[in-house]
């Protein structure tokens, strides 16, 4: 009778250790799979739309025209800049930075208004060049501080 009372009085405890192990494994799994995805960055551009008539007497600087050839080589206003093998396009970036500085100087001294004086870059790429080459040019523009980028089809 005493033994039976003792058995009935004993509390059954559930061992939680395996559950905690599984829980931690799940946590680590979801932490790792969440971190593995590389974040995507963005480069903005505008497609050529209807020409906006801002007035006959509005002075605007000439847009910079960049051409990308089939092999990725880059020409800026007709002059060869880079061969496209180096995606950073160092010569193009340098040239664009100088042009942006020039445009900002012209805005500061009143030659052009702030709205119309910003440097505009028109990018045209041949059909056989790959997407990376145009992105390299847009990247060079972003690095040089060009805010207005458009495309020529």
């Amino acid at each position, binding site marked *: 009778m005493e033994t039976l009372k003792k058995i009935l009085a004993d509390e059954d405890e559930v061992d939680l250790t395996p559950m905690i192990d599984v829980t931690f494994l799940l946590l680590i799994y979801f932490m790792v799979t969440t971190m593995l995805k590389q*974040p995507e960055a963005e480069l903005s551009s505008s497609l050529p739309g209807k020409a906006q008539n801002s007035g006959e007497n509005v002075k605007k600087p000439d847009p910079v025209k960049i051409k990308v050839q089939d092999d990725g080589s880059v020409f800026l206003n007709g002059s060869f800049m880079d061969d496209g093998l180096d995606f950073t396009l160092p010569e193009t970036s340098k040239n664009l930075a100088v042009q942006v500085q020039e445009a900002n100087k012209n805005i500061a001294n009143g030659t052009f208004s702030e709205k119309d004086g910003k440097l505009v870059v028109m990018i045209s790429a041949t059909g*056989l060049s790959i997407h990376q080459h145009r*992105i390299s040019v847009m990247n060079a523009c972003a690095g040089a501080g060009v805010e207005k980028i458009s495309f020529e089809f």
Partner: protein
Amino acid sequence: MSKYKPPESNDSPDLTPMIDVVFLLIVFFMVVAQRMSEQYIALDSLAIAANAQVSEQPPPRTIISVSEDPINGYQYYWGEQQIDESAITDAVKRHPDWSVLLRVTPEITQATVDDILQLIAAGGQSKVIFAVFEVAQ
């Protein structure tokens, strides 16, 4: 002298709050992982642009992805849904005030990208954002 028996004590720590916190963390990471994967399909690679910026909380936009399959050719996606090339204009027209996020693998030719840009322009949208990676994978 009778044997001294120390009083029974239960010194084991109470693990219940720790388990609650761990479950909360699991649910958090499950939700975050799902949210990151639900917007668009995964592409093998994107173009590289070191000066591009990661947008932390972008506004809603129309997401068009293009991948190339050696057997099936070009495949177009609107979000996670596969569509025909001709449906891109309609997809853009659905939300005329949303800009377009264009995700393209870097080897795709410019002629194909230009066709897509013209379809986007036909949808009345002029703001196009290209998705890139800041560094190579």
